């Protein structure tokens, strides 16, 4: 769906560095600097100055129930605030916040996502989101599932291993301009292809790293954004769709849910200058670019994308934030952000961001 009734402005965004381990930093300590940063961008005190707060996190990543409850300690929630939480990437917290503003119950919202994924064995932890009777008991890890998907692509002739390496090479190159990236540098396709397979046909560099960190965003009605007097971008459309949990009934070489979300969000209504795609594996960036109908004119993952650093539960929100930043800086007029959840791109969110 596109935003008809009330246009929504993205006013501020910040994300932490993608760190292989945040070490002695707890959830509150991870979140607080990001919230402070977006508050400062707008000139607000704390969560009291927005109408709604929504966060995204996942207890199992760090292995403690109610991680999000600790997050509330970072907000200054006295007196009490209007606040909610999704056990999903914070891009879905953005979605919930958009609905709140559209229905007139809020004129502004703070959104944040955070995770410490490093304490556990992430691909194994995430195996427990699979079918609890048929797959989770086998501990099929997420890297292996992505590898099955990549093989389907290769066998179908839809990509080559060189195409995958080219995605990684561009990611690392782009990430050199991203101060928050974990992996950056000039690497040639040839040198990447010379590396051994990890979970064949994937090489290690085809898989995103595990990162700890957080990101935060402030959105508002356009009227509120104007009143704040800060540069903003318009969130023109946002939609998300899920697919079957049975990986084998899905056509894993395509992403019909992304295609559908893109139609509903209005991706094709104009030229796309920039796209930030949540592709944790190199071949998935190609699937997503195709599903979104992106062409030569689009700069894909100028931040390096999540192959350069993947803040679980925040990377989706960060994709929207990256596009926002490029639009307010004047680098782009119109962009697309994408977030994903579940194995092999099961659940996809697409947002269209435009210059005001």
């Amino acid at each position, binding site marked *: 769906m596109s935003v008809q009734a009330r246009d929504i402005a993205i006013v501020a965004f910040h994300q932490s560095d993608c760190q292989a381990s945040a070490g002695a930093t707890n959830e509150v300590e991870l979140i607080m600097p990001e919230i402070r940063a977006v508050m400062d961008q707008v000139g607000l005190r704390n969560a009291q100055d927005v109408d709604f707060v929504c966060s995204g996190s996942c207890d199992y990543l760090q292995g403690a129930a109610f991680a999000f409850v600790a997050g509330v300690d970072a907000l200054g929630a006295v007196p009490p605030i209007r606040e909610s939480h999704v056990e999903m990437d914070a891009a879905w917290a953005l979605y919930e916040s958009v609905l709140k503003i559209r229905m007139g119950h809020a004129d502004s919202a703070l959104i944040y996502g955070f995770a410490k994924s490093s304490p556990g064995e992430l691909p194994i932890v995430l195996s427990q989101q699979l079918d609890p009777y048929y797959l989770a008991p086998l501990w099929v890890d997420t890297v*292996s599932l992505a590898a099955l998907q990549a093989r389907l692509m290769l066998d179908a002739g839809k990509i080559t291993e060189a195409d995958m390496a080219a995605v990684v090479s561009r990611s690392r190159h782009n990430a050199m301009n991203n101060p928050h990236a974990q992996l950056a540098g000039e690497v040639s396709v040839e040198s990447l292809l010379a590396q051994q397979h990890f979970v064949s046909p994937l090489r290690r560099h085809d898989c995103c790293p595990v990162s700890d960190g957080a990101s935060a965003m402030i959105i508002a009605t356009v009227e509120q954004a104007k009143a704040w007097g800060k540069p903003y971008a318009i969130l023109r459309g946002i939609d998300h769709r899920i697919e079957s949990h049975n990986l084998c009934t899905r056509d894993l070489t395509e992403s019909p849910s992304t295609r559908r979300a893109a139609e509903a969000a209005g991706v094709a209504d104009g030229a796309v200058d920039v796209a930030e795609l949540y592709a944790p594996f190199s071949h998935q960036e190609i699937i997503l670019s195709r599903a979104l109908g992106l062409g030569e004119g689009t700069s894909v993952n100028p931040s390096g994308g999540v192959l350069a650093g993947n803040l679980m539960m925040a990377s989706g929100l960060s994709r929207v934030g990256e596009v926002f930043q490029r639009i307010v800086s004047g680098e782009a007029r119109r962009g697309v952000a994408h977030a994903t959840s579940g194995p092999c791109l099961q659940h996809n969110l697409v947002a269209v961001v435009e210059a005001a």
Partner: protein
Amino acid sequence: MSPTEVLSEAFELGFTYTRSTGPVVGRFLTGLRDRRIEGVRASDGRVMVPPMEYDPDTAAALDDFVEVGQQGEIVSWCWVSEPRKAHPLQQPFAWAMIRLDGADVPMIHCVSAASEDQLATGARVQVRWAEETRGHIADIACFELAEVAQ
């Protein structure tokens, strides 16, 4: 912030969940215990193994069971050169999507093979049953390359 020691400690988050299966999953697992593999026919006629409880397209409850073969064909696969502790096999092995004979939708399970170059998309594999079957997905210990070429 004054310098502090980094306090770090390993811990285990664990529980042995007691899952009730419901009739569809239960029937499949009962079949495995008896060394039979049953799928279910979806609304569009496709046979899905393991059986889904609900149709992915129409959301209809499914109960038209079909027994399928114990051999099949690899539709996709990946080679795990460094098995993780949690994995069912500790020697290098493959995860694969396997379309069993008589089924339309593949299933995901592990394949035991001596080396990566023995495997290929389209290769024929067969079930290796666990020594003791108990009504669990791991009653299929793994798949292995089929002995008789078809």
